[in-house]
């Protein structure tokens, strides 16, 4: 009898659609093998991607907001702090910085200078936002410096937008106009920036799946993505992962609205994972760390809350990032996550940002996949793994 699947090797399985230009439901770690090899040798590697926020504040009140579970000691990230942080990041070898998690970064006075300075330093810069405070002037300033801009937009109709995202319904109109402006500026200046819309789907908001996909078709961003909602280990947001199973038909219908220039993407792998993890060690954090809008450096956004203080490495408001990164404290925490002391199945919330990277590295450590240079063309946004 031939050996069964567990010990057989297979080629790199980082994404089923790795030949596609955009990888939205996988990891691009395979295109950073040099850093994976350095990690494997036990070197102190710089993160490839840092996901962060410039503030913990937000002008929206989304019911599914994970950031509300991430409260920690507040501090103000000033423009000066960010300038130092960006220089440190570029110096140690960080490739991309996304201003996505934990707060609405566009509310910070440091937002535009951060995007522009990061780009000048050679870092790929990206942003996830509700896009409410943008106007044409601001968009003209930032779009040339961005790799991608993703608008969080978890509904397809005016009234439900207000309900789900906790704002006045008329804000829907302003954000729609901002998306039209983004696309017009992008086309006019032939900018390489990718504009996306993202729906965080709670099963009870399934009535908005098709309206969202149709709205995207009208506004014409480059893509519209529908993803699961993450929950913490206590299930505080009450996400019913088994209920996603009933939405497959609707999600397939939404995908069918894609055309040559507009792509509707469902993050199937995470939806089908039903909030579970196949791995217990967290190897992904050294490649992809997160920084709270309070300046707190932690391996992961799910560990931002004061409850997880033992994983809190430092704060960029108080200490230079390159010093934090080089500290024994940083590597003590990262090693904790890779050690027998840690079990991601029992000690983390569901489906974190590092999930796909963790899956890939864990499979590799268990001899279930090889490290091979991926075939096919290099995907877009390669610095955001």
């Amino acid at each position, binding site marked *: 009898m031939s050996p069964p*699947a567990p*010990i057989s090797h297979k080629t790199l399985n980082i994404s089923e659609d790795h030949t596609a230009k955009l990888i939205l439901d996988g990891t691009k770690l395979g295109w950073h093998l040099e850093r994976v090899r350095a990690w494997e040798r036990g*070197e102190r590697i710089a993160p490839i991607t840092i996901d962060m926020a410039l503030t913990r504040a937000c002008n929206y009140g989304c019911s599914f907001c994970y950031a509300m579970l991430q409260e920690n000691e507040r501090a103000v990230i000033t423009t000066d702090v960010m300038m130092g942080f960006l220089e440190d990041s570029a110096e140690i070898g960080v490739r991309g910085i996304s201003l996505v998690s934990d707060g609405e970064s566009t509310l910070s006075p440091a937002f535009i200078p951060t995007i522009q300075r990061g780009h000048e330093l050679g870092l790929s810069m990206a942003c996830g936002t509700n896009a409410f405070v943008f106007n044409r002037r601001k968009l003209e300033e930032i779009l040339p410096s961005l790799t991608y801009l993703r608008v969080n937009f978890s509904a397809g109709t005016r009234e439900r937008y207000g309900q789900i995202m906790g704002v006045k319904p008329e804000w829907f109109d302003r954000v729609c106009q901002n998306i039209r402006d983004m696309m017009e500026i992008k086309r006019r200046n032939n900018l390489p920036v990718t504009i996306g819309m993202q729906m965080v789907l709670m099963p009870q908001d399934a009535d908005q799946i098709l309206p969202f996909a149709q709205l995207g078709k009208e506004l014409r961003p480059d893509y519209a993505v529908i993803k699961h909602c993450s929950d913490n280990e206590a299930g505080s947001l009450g996400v019913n992962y088994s209920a996603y199973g009933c939405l497959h038909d609707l999600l397939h219908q939404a995908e069918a609205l894609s055309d040559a220039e507009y792509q509707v993407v469902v993050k199937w792998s995470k939806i089908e994972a039903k909030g579970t993890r196949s791995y217990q060690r967290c190897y992904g954090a050294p490649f992809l760390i997160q920084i709270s809008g309070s300046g707190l450096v932690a391996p992961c956004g799910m560990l931002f*809350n004061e409850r997880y203080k*033992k994983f809190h490495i430092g704060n960029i408001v108080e200490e230079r990032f390159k010093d934090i990164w080089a500290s024994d404290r940083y*590597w003590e*925490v990262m090693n904790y996550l890779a050690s027998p002391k840690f079990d991601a199945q029992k000690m983390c919330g569901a489906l974190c940002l590092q999930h796909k990277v963790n899956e890939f590295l864990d499979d590799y450590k268990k001899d279930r996949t090889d490290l091979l240079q991926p075939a096919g063309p290099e995907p877009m946004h390669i610095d955001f793994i």
Partner: protein
Amino acid sequence: MSDLIHIDYEKIAADYMESLTTMLRNFQSSGHRFLETWVPDKDDSRSILGMIEAAKDDEVAGIAIHLGQATLARIDSEKLKQAAARFGTLSTFPSGDGLELSLAFLAADGSRIVTAEGTGFGQQAAAVSRRESSAAAEKRKESHPVVLNKGTNPLYSHGLQQAAESRSHEGSLLAKDPLPRVEITVEGLTLSALVDPERNILRKAAYSGADSENLHGLLETLCRFIEGRPLIECHDHSVIFVEYHLRDHSFAPPVPGIVTPENADPMFALPTRLVRELFAEYCRKTGFNNLKNQHDQPISEAWKALSSEERVERISEEVSAHPSGKGMLVLRMESPKRVIVGFAENVKPGAKQGLLIAVEDHLQRTLDRTLQLYVDPKVDQNKRRLREASAI
């Protein structure tokens, strides 16, 4: 004990640091030859152990180190004593405002002392069923003291030496046992296991073919770890545990970045091959192919036997006795594994992370290795969600 070299640790360390800026050439630490090779560490425990190590390497008879209050406030003295005892015969006693740590490296007859103070495996070692009687083990140890191979990585030498003293898993498993037996041989080493086919749990393990103390230590440790665990867990994580348990955590880790068995030491390649091939053989024999691993490390029987109040009491005692536990308050247990603590107001926020890690490590070593420390969470301020929750 008159042959002991007496050292005032704080003075020596302070002189050393001063000399770094006042000396240009012929830099050396004052007084004793062994100090010529000693370099202080910012971690006082490592610094002191380095001093002991340097003294032993220089073949002095013994060393008595005075530790002042300032040093004692920064270290876990119990952990230091455990680690120091690996180098020789340890005695400690109060000295002035501090503590004197005395290590004798020579026995009464003048021979070098080979030590193997027990730490590391803790409850797990105690739970292993011994095939070799303690009298037989003592007899064997007397006639064949454990001497590790030359070139053994010092980070693992104590763990290997300690593990190799017992040969409770050497041999083969009896064919008459009703459980199915799985056996593989790699590079002349055989690993055998009896597996409960209902739950795919490895019940008993044995090895044979080891021709060095290092291999005995390594395979004893592996066998102890894999017994009682699901086979998929043995495949996935056993060598991570073996590496972690054999490592001497008093010193810096084997690599500056993320430690894995593969980059820690080449010796871990062999147990990895053994467990993975054992798993493959089991799959071949039985058709088993479930790769899902949801194994949750259970608490020990001793910890399970305690009431919730008793657990809080035991934890509180350990926390208050530990230097990093000063200013830490045990609030409650969220589960038998999860301890919620708070801090006194005078504890600096930046210090809390290190204190939590140190105390958690202490609790895992002294009470139960599954214990985890958390701080009281900051609460959700989302008014809409709170309103909706209260309406349900």
